[in-house]
């Protein structure tokens, strides 16, 4: 079937899913899965044929003719949307079932399909007005999904924050598309690379899409929204919705000319975002908040890669720019896959133990071996370790940075600080995810609830297994996915026609594959040797301490304390400490919280001052006529004085 027919099928089944979602859970799931399959098939068609799909009609919406287009870039994001949308829908069947949530589950299903539909339309629409409409509907559907559990106060709060921040971004996008339409005379979108006068518009796009993507310091809405949403929603939001911001940046930096500083700005913002995002993630003790901050890091890596690609494009289409773009595009997929896997894993943990606080978990591997091993796989991938997928894309971006630096051309020396920042961020990510996996799944259960935890069922494992498979496949055989990357980079910049994968990538995948096989073989061998020599179970030795308790284990805060201490100037942790006193201490508390610095230390005080100023100004307006006449007279007198003293009106 052609891409058009497949997309039509996906559209119809998503619409049907929206209609049936309220009542019939099974039919809904069927329709969503059909849409996911057809959506990814359409993307694969575009990758395989290398030709973009375009469809124009005379039918008008809002006075503009419909114009849809699926090229390499949008197909890449569409494939991600399809896989995560379908996977999340299957996961929700067990995670958010009608029996437990009779009120919100049907609403969640309807919103889920509308969110998928709207994001699909954002990817397809090739008209500024329709893009904005789809964008707005997508933001609103996401709001309703985030606040499914709206009885809880913090859920409502984070929902409102998301909506407000999202609309702040949309405002910039209105300005962006409006100015674009005014300058070009039409709402039609498409390649306009030779119109150099349009390049300042990039800054508007950066602000608008940056909010949605969650770039530091525009990420204020992201941690609370992702932490408080149901886990399948967090997975879709983190895996796909924030990628819509990245899509906007990739799309319009490809279609429109960009200012000369754009590449540098993105590279700097991206690497700072990566470092700060992961520093915040490390300091969190809430599992889902940790994952949310890690999204800030990964979006940073994506933006840094895109910035490098822009620099490469500006310098005679250098090969290192193409490497960086390939890394960026692959990282979009990689982050989607492992982050959704991690959020599904976190969802299973919340489902089993009823809390996201890492200090109340521990020792879950015994009750949840599947979740523990899949979550650990996700952790290895997100920390960018070989032989998994995160490493491949980060390696491509690094290679771009190093190749750029090796040229020793004067301005390119500035790519070296981002390389060092990204390296530090990578090492911090390792610390962060060693902590997340180990504190939650290893050691002894810290509470009764963690002790009673139970494994989820097949509907929860299935999507996790699928995503783990994607992570493995992208890591071990990146060459198989090269046609998609090549087609997307061709759509981004038509002069970059290199369809051959870079030579080192083949060597890399060979090494990765060998390593994975060897690691498996040696692990089995060592296990057998240990068993043959005699394997005995005993109490943790702990330097001879005979009665260890679960509360003596290292906690998440203790583990992160050392490295997070270097970022106190940024994190500003709040401590509440009541030391034990006296011979028989009754009570002692130690509570530590890491606030969202930008929101609570910068934005909230400013907003409070603005509110105070407006309250003060409001006293001037009280409805008493004599006072208004006094204002008029005073104003006239002031004007008169101004003129008398020689001012020109």
């Amino acid at each position, binding site marked *: 079937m052609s891409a058009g027919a497949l997309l039509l099928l996906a559209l119809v089944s998503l619409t049907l899913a929206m209609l049936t979602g309220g009542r019939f859970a099974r039919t809904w799931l069927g329709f969503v899965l059909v849409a996911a399959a057809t959506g990814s098939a359409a993307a694969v068609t575009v990758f395989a044929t290398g030709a973009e799909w375009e469809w124009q009609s005379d039918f008008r919406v809002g006075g503009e003719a419909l114009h849809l287009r699926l090229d390499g870039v949008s197909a890449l994001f569409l494939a991600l949307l399809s896989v995560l949308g379908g996977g999340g829908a299957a996961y929700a069947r067990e995670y958010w079932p009608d029996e437990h949530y009779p009120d919100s589950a049907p609403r969640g299903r309807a919103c889920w399909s509308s969110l998928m539909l709207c994001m699909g339309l954002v990817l397809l629409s090739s008209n500024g007005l329709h893009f904005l409409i789809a964008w707005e509907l997508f933001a609103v559907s996401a709001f309703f999904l985030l606040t499914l559990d709206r009885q809880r106060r913090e859920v409502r709060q984070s929902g409102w924050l998301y909506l407000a921040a999202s609309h702040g971004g949309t405002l910039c996008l209105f300005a962006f598309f409006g100015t674009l339409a005014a300058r070009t005379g039409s709402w039609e979108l498409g390649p306009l690379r030779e119109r150099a006068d349009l390049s300042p518009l990039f800054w508007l796009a950066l602000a608008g899409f940056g909010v949605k993507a969650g770039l530091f310091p525009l990420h204020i809405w992201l941690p609370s929204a992702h932490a408080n949403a149901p886990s399948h929603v967090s997975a879709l939001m983190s895996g796909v919705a924030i990628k819509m911001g990245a899509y906007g940046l990739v799309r319009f930096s490809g279609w429109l000319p960009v200012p000369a500083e754009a590449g540098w700005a993105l590279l700097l913002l991206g690497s700072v975002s990566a470092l700060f995002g992961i520093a915040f993630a490390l300091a969190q003790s809430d599992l889902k908040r940790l994952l949310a901050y890690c999204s800030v890091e990964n979006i940073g890596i994506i933006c840094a890669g895109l910035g490098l690609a822009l620099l490469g494009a500006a310098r005679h289409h250098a090969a290192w720019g193409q490497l960086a773009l390939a890394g960026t595009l692959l990282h979009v997929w990689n982050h989607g896959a492992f982050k959704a896997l991690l959020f599904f894993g976190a969802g299973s943990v919340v489902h089993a133990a009823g809390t996201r606080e890492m200090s109340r978990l521990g020792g879950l591997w015994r009750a949840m071996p599947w979740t523990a091993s899949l979550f650990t796989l996700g952790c290895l991938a997100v920390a*960018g370790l070989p032989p998994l997928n995160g490493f491949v894309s980060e390696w491509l971006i690094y290679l771009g940075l190093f190749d750029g630096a090796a040229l020793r051309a004067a301005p390119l020396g500035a790519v070296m600080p981002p390389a060092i920042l990204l390296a530090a961020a*990578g090492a911090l990510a390792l610390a962060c995810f060693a902590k997340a996996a180990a504190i939650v799944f290893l050691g002894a259960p810290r509470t009764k609830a963690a002790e009673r935890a139970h494994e989820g069922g097949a509907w929860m494992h299935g999507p996790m297994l699928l995503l783990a498979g994607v992570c493995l496949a992208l890591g071990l055989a990146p060459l198989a996915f090269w046609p998609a990357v090549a087609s997307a980079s061709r759509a981004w910049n038509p002069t970059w026609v290199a369809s051959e994968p870079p030579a080192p990538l083949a060597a890399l995948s060979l090494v990765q594959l060998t390593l994975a096989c060897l690691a498996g073989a040696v692990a089995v061998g060592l296990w057998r040797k240990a068993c043959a020599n005699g394997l005995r179970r005993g109490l943790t030795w*702990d330097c001879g301490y005979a009665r260890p308790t679960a509360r003596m284990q290292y906690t998440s805060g203790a583990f992160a304390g050392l490295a997070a201490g270097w970022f106190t100037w940024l994190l500003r942790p709040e401590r509440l400490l009541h030391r034990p006193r006296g011979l028989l201490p009754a009570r002692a508390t130690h509570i530590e919280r890491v606030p969202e610095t930008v929101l609570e230390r910068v934005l909230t005080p400013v907003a409070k001052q603005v509110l105070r100023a407006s309250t003060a100004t409001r006293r001037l307006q009280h409805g008493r006529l004599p006072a208004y006449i006094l204002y008029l007279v005073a104003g006239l007198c002031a004007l008169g004085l101004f003129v008398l003293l020689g001012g020109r009106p």
Partner: protein
Amino acid sequence: MMLLELIVRLALWLLLAPLLPGIINKVKAWVAGRRGPPVLQLYYDLARLWRKGVVMSTLASPGFIIGPAVAWVAVAGAALLLPLGAAGSLVGFRGDMLMLLYLLALARFCTSWAALETGSAFEGMGAAREVSYAVLAEAALIAAMLSLCVQTGSTALATMLAPSGGAGAVLLAAGLFLVLLAENCRVPFDDPNTHLELTMIHEVMVLDHSGPPLAVLLHCATMKLLLFALLLTQAVLPIGRLSEPANATVLAGGVLLAMVGVGLVESLLARLAFRRVPLFLVTAFLLCLFALLMAWKGGRA
């Protein structure tokens, strides 16, 4: 042919690595006026551990044994990526130096994971220190790699390491030597002799390991030491300009010299207070950074 080379190289790495701690201990004994343990002591220890049974904590998952295995494979893989003077590297490709760094990171993740399996506060402490200090060490290493890359205009280890470190070689040597001490948990960052203190990194992470997994972890640590010594030697000395026999001699001499240096540092210095460790690592980073600046300003090798 390639398979044969692989086997020879792997055998060299596996067999020679446990020699290094023996050399360091001999140097320390010599400085202190003792006779010290035999140079081959670690071989005896490894053979003994390999035959022993395993005691596993009741809390530990199979990851307790898989972790050391994967860490060992990762370090061995990194070792095979490193070129050996004139022999070049086994599988050299552009960007293999990043693969090397990330394989070491994988080993770090796995050893920390295995340490955290036991739920012991001691081992949690060690793992936390290991992963935290690695942040600064990694920044220093990337700066060092960047300086080599800028100097040679290449991103493959074989060509990056062939010429000498150039003008910044002294700075690079100092920086990489500090990173070697930190990454291999030697004095002044850590004390490999103590066992029961709150101030250790590597030794405290293997407290609960026994038998073959402990042997694998110890062997893995020696391979890492040899890897860093070789990296340091090749980054600083103009290996590529020498004839083949001279090359091997210089490599061996460089590693020996590095080990004597480690032994002397261990004999003459006390362990740092823990809050000083980051300061020392930042010094290593700054040394590498200055080497990078000199490479940027200096001529191409």
